[in-house]
């Protein structure tokens, strides 16, 4: 449910960027959501539709790219998906570390005209 404030934040950032570029309208927004970022795309879409009304971003299409949470072996470096009950590398039995990207949540790019 924290997506309301998160979406507000996102909208302010893209509107500022569009103004800087002297654009009349934002047509699309590309967002990247990591599995562990605690952000839900459907909620972002819902709040975006409400909040963007009457702004340059109204009607912009939201594209989401997802980054799954994956683990990387601290011994041999192999990447593998998280299982929920085991952090052992299937290759060498070493301990896994979380790769950083799954916590990310950012605006990749926008399209304006």
């Amino acid at each position: 449910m924290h997506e309301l404030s998160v979406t507000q934040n996102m909208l302010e950032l893209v509107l500022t960027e569009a103004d800087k570029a002297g654009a009349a309208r934002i047509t699309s927004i590309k967002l990247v959501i990591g599995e562990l970022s605690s952000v839900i795309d459907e909620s972002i879409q819902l709040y975006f539709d409400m909040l963007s009304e009457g702004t340059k971003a109204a009607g912009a299409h939201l594209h989401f790219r997802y980054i799954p949470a994956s683990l990387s072996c601290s011994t041999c470096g192999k990447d593998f998906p998280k299982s929920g009950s085991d952090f052992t590398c299937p290759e060498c039995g070493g301990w896994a570390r979380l790769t950083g990207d799954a916590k990310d949540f950012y605006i990749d790019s926008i399209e304006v005209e």
Partner: protein
Amino acid sequence: MSVTIKMMQKIMRNNNEVAAENRAYFHAHGLKTINVMASPGAGKTSVILGLIELMREKLNVAVIEGDTAGSIDAEKVNAAGIPVVQINSGGRCHLDAQIIREAAEDLQAQTGLLFIENIGNLICPSTFDLGEDVKMVIASVPEGHDKPYKYLAMFEAADIIVLNKIDLKPYIDFDEEAFRTGIAAINTKKAPLFTVSCTTKSGLAELAEYLMTQNQR
């Protein structure tokens, strides 16, 4: 004509900026802050109260109480004679830096230790920096040993991990080794693990001692 603008901009930036200001504010007031995170019922308030009992003679302690259910927890802290600010958290799932800034202004801050009791939730609180010095994550034996495997971001972020309700271990199928292995793997900070019971008071003195010696740094 359509133009693509590359932004690569983190959306949590606003929160992180306010959190940095909070951190500076707390340090300027000589406050060491501990963000206490756990699932509902893990014993956040009990651990905080248990620690306060052991620490209050030695240093000033204050609490920002963010738990979601009314003011029951704040009243318990207040009854112990400790300065407390209750955040009216309503349906929130986490505390953020802005709320903490407002609460910090309401609190008569004195040099010492400030506990921030976050909302009972092992997911979103891990992604919102409040400006704290220490993230203390509490798990409890009845929740099961798989928590580090399911809530990776939370256990990765922890600076201190507390395993509460250790007195219940004989009655529950809790594999402490699996719990410890999960933490050792995912938590690259090598966060210390304290096993405690707020019922028998076991382990609380060691945790209090650790927090107070960290405080002198």
